């Protein structure tokens, strides 16, 4: 059995990899591509809304852009970008060699990727879905929506499987793979939030899968769950969607909280204030997140009692969220703060997120929501949470973990320029949208009339979008520039506190030559104070057992992709092949791979001690 790396093509290496670090990088790349795609759509939509009665996009295209922008941003950009960090960082932070099921990890990525690809194919088959990212029936029923919506249903169904699979993997990893001494109450907060967010995925993506299945049955096989003429119920879809949809917001924002809780202590040179309170606040937010979905439906006519219950339940979430905000502030209080780019993003996250939270409480007042509902006020609110919360946290994470992932820092000067252009652009774009909303500009309209007091603010909002686009270009320049000229750094460039910075440099495929012994919260910092600055090993240096790569996850995902496409063919005018053949054929590919995987024995390979010693020296 060979131990040295066989020289294979780079492409093959990445297609078959089961290494959590490479999968993390693939999530980062795929998520970025989708982010740019949805971002360009946002830019086009804002250009269309720059002046009254513009003719830049048609109404139909605008609707398709709105739907695809929202869907892609949430499912194919924000989630995978967070998954990128979870994959790369979580095993390092808990002192593990890899995730619990490396094969399944690769599978999760490829299924997500091909699900997203399937959704994107809609452009080549008569246009994207156009019923909004919420796909409310009857707008999304077969009477009103074309093929695009079938791509929405099956694309999300497939990529949702990928998300579920990865989430379960994270849960098992965090439960089972922690280094000796790493108790649950010593987990870094990013690991905690990953854990809780994965639990939310487990409980929230299942209702989504069920809802999408019902919608698929309605659209493809003439079922009538949501067809009122036949006794179906349209409000049922809204409930199922938001039982998933509201927790989805927390699935995204909790890991963002986690990133902030790592960055702020690192650059304040203090331990996180109120660790235990932070953990329990996260759990409480997650639990309450499930019980408030109907606040999206105040205007449906649920009646005053139901409205009041959901309004109050929603407002209670402000309590644990407030605990978190104050703990971040107390962490910075009296700290020796370094304002580099990562810290700029992390510290500006706090007030921005609070603004989004305040408008959230305003929207939670059921009677007042009748005023705000479906106006730009709502658009402003959720973009303050999503861009001002999640995206700022993601950028903080990029600048913080970049040296660990790629071995060099991003340029600080360009980074700060990027931060200011983005931050100013963001507030320009979205702050005025609150005012537009209060003046009555409805959401999801492709144009507006002049001289109604909406002209100036819409113009300002679009200018802000240009700023943000420029900022992203600066970031791209920064990435390219730093790849050549970036400061090459060692294993621990920030003098940080957690385990990922205790690994060798460059990061070997087995992460830790010897599993570390954890003696405290912030283990690396503890060793810097009480030990010799290095982690104590928990085991002797010995051969390391690693899993082999495999092409099966890729083929299985292609199978699911083909099957999903086959289902869509049921609604096509002249399918070249009988749809059922394609749908079943695709599933067969996946199942055959599963059988191969179960029958064929694959014991992985060993890295001998001499090789490890050679790597650890430099």
């Amino acid at each position, binding site marked *: *059995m060979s131990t040295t790396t066989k020289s294979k093509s780079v492409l093959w290496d990445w297609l078959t990899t089961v290494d959590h670090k490479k999968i993390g990088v693939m999530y980062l790349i795929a998520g970025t591509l989708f982010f740019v795609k949805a971002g360009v759509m946002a830019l086009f939509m804002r250009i269309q809304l720059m002046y009254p009665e513009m003719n830049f996009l048609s109404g139909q295209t605008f609707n398709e852009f709105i739907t695809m922008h929202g869907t892609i941003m949430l499912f194919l950009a924000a989630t995978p970008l967070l998954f990128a960090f979870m994959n790369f960082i979580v095993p390092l932070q808990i002192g593990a060699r890899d995730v619990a099921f490396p094969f399944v990890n690769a599978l999760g990525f490829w299924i997500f990727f091909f699900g997203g690809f399937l959704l994107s194919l809609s452009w080549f088959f008569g246009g994207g879905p156009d019923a909004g990212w919420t796909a409310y029936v009857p707008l999304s029923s077969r009477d009103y929506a074309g093929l695009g919506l079938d791509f929405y249903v099956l694309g999300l169904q497939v990529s949702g499987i990928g998300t579920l699979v990865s989430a379960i993997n994270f849960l098992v990893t965090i439960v089972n793979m922690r280094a000796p001494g790493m108790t649950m109450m010593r987990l870094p907060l990013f690991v905690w939030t990953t854990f809780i967010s994965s639990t939310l995925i487990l409980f929230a993506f299942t209702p989504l899968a069920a809802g999408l299945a019902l919608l698929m049955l309605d659209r493809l096989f003439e079922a009538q769950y949501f067809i009122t003429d036949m006794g179906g119920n349209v*409000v049922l879809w809204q409930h199922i969607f938001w039982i998933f949809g509201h927790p989805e917001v927390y699935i995204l924002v909790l890991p963002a909280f986690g990133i902030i809780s790592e960055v702020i202590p690192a650059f304040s040179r203090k331990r996180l204030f109120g660790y235990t309170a932070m953990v329990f606040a996260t759990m409480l937010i997650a*639990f309450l997140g*499930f019980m408030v979905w109907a606040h999206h439906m105040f205007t449906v*006519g649920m009646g005053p009692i*139901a409205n009041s219950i959901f309004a109050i339940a929603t407002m209670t979430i402000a309590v644990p969220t407030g605990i978190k905000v104050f703990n971040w502030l107390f962490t910075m209080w009296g700290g020796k703060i370094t304002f580099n780019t990562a810290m700029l993003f992390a510290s500006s996250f706090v007030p921005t997120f609070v603004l989004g939270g305040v408008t959230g409480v305003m929207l939670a007042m059921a009677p007042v929501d009748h005023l705000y509902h479906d106006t730009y006020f709502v658009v402003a609110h959720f973009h303050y949470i999503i861009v001002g919360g999640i995206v700022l946290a993601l950028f903080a994470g990029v600048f913080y973990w970049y040296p660990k992932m790629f071995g060099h820092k991003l340029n600080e000067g360009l980074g700060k320029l990027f931060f200011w252009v983005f931050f100013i652009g963001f507030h320009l774009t979205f702050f005025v949208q609150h005012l537009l909303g209060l003046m009555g500009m409805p959401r999801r309209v492709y144009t507006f009339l002049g001289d109604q007091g909406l002209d100036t603010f819409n113009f300002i909002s679009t200018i802000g979008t240009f700023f943000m686009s420029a900022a992203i270009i600066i970031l791209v320049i920064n990435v390219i520039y730093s790849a050549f000229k970036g400061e090459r750094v060692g294993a621990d460039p920030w003098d940080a506190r957690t385990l990922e910075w205790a690994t060798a440099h460059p990061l070997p495929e087995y992460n830790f030559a010897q599993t570390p012994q954890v003696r405290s919260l912030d283990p690396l910092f503890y060793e810097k104070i009480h030990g010799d600055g290095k982690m104590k090993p928990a085991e002797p240096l010995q051969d390391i057992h690693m899993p082999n790569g495999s092409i099966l996850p890729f083929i299985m995902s292609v199978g699911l992709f083909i099957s999903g496409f086959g289902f869509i063919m049921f609604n096509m005018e002249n399918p070249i092949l009988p749809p059922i053949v394609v749908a079943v054929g695709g599933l067969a590919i996946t199942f055959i791979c599963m059988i191969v995987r179960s029958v064929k024995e694959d014991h992985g*390979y060993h890295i*001998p001690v001499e090789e490890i010693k050679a790597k650890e020296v430099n």
Partner: protein
Amino acid sequence: MADNLSQPFSKSAMTEEEKVQFQREKKQQVVAFVLMIFLTLLAFLAVAADFLPVMFVIPFILLLALVQFVLQMFYFMHLKDNDHGWANAFIWSGVFIAIPTIAALMLLLGITKY
């Protein structure tokens, strides 16, 4: 050391005690399985038999469903095992979240206005 990995084990890695435990568990599962088939049959018969009043059949099969659920959880999802703490925690939090959610959903959909 790397090479003997591809060879099959010569004997079972389980201790005698574990083997006994395993046998007992197997027996319990078979019994639970037979019992569940019996319960399913009972439910089917209750619905198929014309002479039973509907007002009896509905609560009756709901009761059977509950028993089945408990059997399923305890014997096949390992809720009875002490060393399955995490699996237990997850299943119970699932139940803890699903019950109020489903109850609220039924109220909101079933009764027109509340």
